[in-house]
């Protein structure tokens, strides 16, 4: 639902969209093996990002908690008053805060960084967005971290090609190096 600046619901009907280009943010994903190949997965939830199809948000409170549980109301995701929606950070540094410390559960064989397109209903916060729909825009694959079970970056990059977006291998393996490398790339591209 769209809202006016004073918080009242905007009139519904043939309202024009506020933006005609997707919002682009940053995120990290885990990579897991699925029957159809390697797929992106949320680092927090067991949500698999489908290839060639948008990920559409549902409010997990409504999925996890029993109907009628206190504080659970049916609503489309994202709702400003809830925490639901597909998340993306406004900066690379913010998106990578947890990339070195993710819990290697749920069959995660590597972790990647990327930009993501967000559209539909979008809630904007101080540090990022929650959206109704999302799809990766570009994927960056760090090197496997020494001493872990991360698969080689080349295997991951080849396996994620099915998303149909640019997939690039980084030289870096850990967060500060990853951020430095991507920021240096951005500086060179802007020069």
């Amino acid at each position, binding site marked *: 639902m769209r809202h006016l600046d004073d918080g009242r619901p905007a009139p519904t009907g043939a309202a024009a969209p506020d933006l005609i280009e*997707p919002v682009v943010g940053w995120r990290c994903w885990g990579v897991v093996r699925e029957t159809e190949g390697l797929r992106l997965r949320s680092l927090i939830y067991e949500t698999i990002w489908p290839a060639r199809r948008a990920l559409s948000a549902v409010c997990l409170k409504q999925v996890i908690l029993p109907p009628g549980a206190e504080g659970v109301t049916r609503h489309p995701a994202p709702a400003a008053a809830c925490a639901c929606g597909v998340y993306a950070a406004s900066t690379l540094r913010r998106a990578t805060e947890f990339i070195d410390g993710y819990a290697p559960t749920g069959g995660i064989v590597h972790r990647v960084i990327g930009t993501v397109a967000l559209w539909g209903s979008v809630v904007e*916060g101080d540090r990022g967005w929650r959206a109704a729909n999302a799809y990766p825009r570009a994927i960056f694959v760090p090197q496997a971290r020494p001493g872990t079970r991360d698969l080689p970056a080349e295997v991951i990059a080849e396996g994620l090609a099915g998303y149909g977006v640019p997939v690039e291998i980084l030289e870096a393996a850990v967060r500060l190096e990853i951020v430095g490398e991507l920021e240096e790339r951005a500086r060179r591209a802007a020069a």
Partner: protein
Amino acid sequence: MEIGKPKREYTVEPIVDPVPREDPVPERRPEQEPVEPELAPA
């Protein structure tokens, strides 16, 4: 990941679909029957 306190809410309807389409399958050309070489005139 936290996005902080909600500031704005808006609707985005991209003109161009952000989901890439499947790569087009190359059209298969029908295999040609081998052509018998014409007999050379005697």
